[in-house]
C-alpha cells in the first residue's frame, strides 16, 4: 500500500510539497510507518532530518492521534505532527 504522510511544522520545511509517500506492507502499524519515514527522511534529507524530533512526533488521522501499536488499516493519508505550540 501507499501511504501519503502530510508534514507539519519543522517537517514541512524539509519538503515544500508538504507530504511524502511511504510504501508499506498491507496491515502495517504506525510503528512501521514511523520506521519507513525515518528511512526515507535519512536518505532524502540527510543531516537536515532530526531523528530526535521524529521520536517525539505523533501520527494522526483527521480524527485522532494514533499510537505506535495501532494498525493503519484503510487509511491512505495520515499526518505527522511534531510537538505543538498553539496559542
Amino acid at each position, binding site marked *: 500500500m501507499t501511504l501519503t504522510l*502530510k508534514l*507539519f*511544522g*519543522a517537517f*514541512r*520545511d524539509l519538503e515544500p510539497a508538504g507530504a511524502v509517500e511511504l510504501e508499506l506492507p498491507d496491515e502495517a502499524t504506525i510503528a512501521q510507518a514511523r520506521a519507513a519515514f525515518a528511512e526515507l527522511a535519512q536518505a532524502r534529507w540527510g543531516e537536515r532530518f532530526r531523528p530526535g524530533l521524529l*521520536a*517525539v*512526533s*505523533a501520527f*494522526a*488521522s*483527521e*480524527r*485522532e*492521534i494514533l*499510537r*505506535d501499536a495501532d494498525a493503519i488499516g484503510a487509511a491512505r493519508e495520515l*499526518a505527522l*505532527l*511534531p*510537538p*505543538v*505550540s*498553539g*496559542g
Partner: protein
Amino acid sequence: MTDPRFHFAIADAANTCLDPTAALDFVSDPAFGGIAIFVGRIRDHNLGRVVTGISYDLFDPLCLNRFTEFAARAEREVGPRLKLYVAHAKGRLRIGDIAVVVAAGTPHRDEAFRACRLAIEAVKHEAPIWKREHYVDGSSEWSEGCSLCEDQRAHEAHVHDAHCDHGHGA
C-alpha cells in the same frame, strides 16, 4: 451533529481577523451571568529575543476535532450549562495581532473561568498547531512544543510530571 452551544473556527490571517466581540456575543445567554474570555496576542519578545511576527501552521480537520474534545472535557468539568467559543489564527501574524480567542459563558463566574482556562490550556498543549517565530534579524524558528505522541507522553509523565514546561507562547 453540530452542538449549538459550541463554536470552533480557524481563521486565515490573510483575510480574517479574530473577533473577541463575536466570541462574547456567541457565549452570551439570558441564563448566563458569567463570561470569561482569553485573548492571546502576538507579543514583541520571547525568551529574550525580539520577535517581529509569528506564522501558524495548523492541521485543520484534526484541530477542529480536538476543539470538540476540549469542549466535551469542559462540559464534564463544569456541567452542560456552558457555551464555548474557540478560534485560532492560521498564517502570518504581526505584533499585537490576535492569535487565539477562547470564551466561555456559564450561569456563574467560577465555571466560566474554569472552562475558559481548561480550553486555552488544551489549545496550547494538545491541538495540532505549530508556531514559527520571526526575529528582528530576519531569521525564524519553530517553537519548542508539547509532544502529542501518546507513547512519548506516557513515558515523560513517568520520568517527570512536566511534559511541556518550555516557555512557548503567552
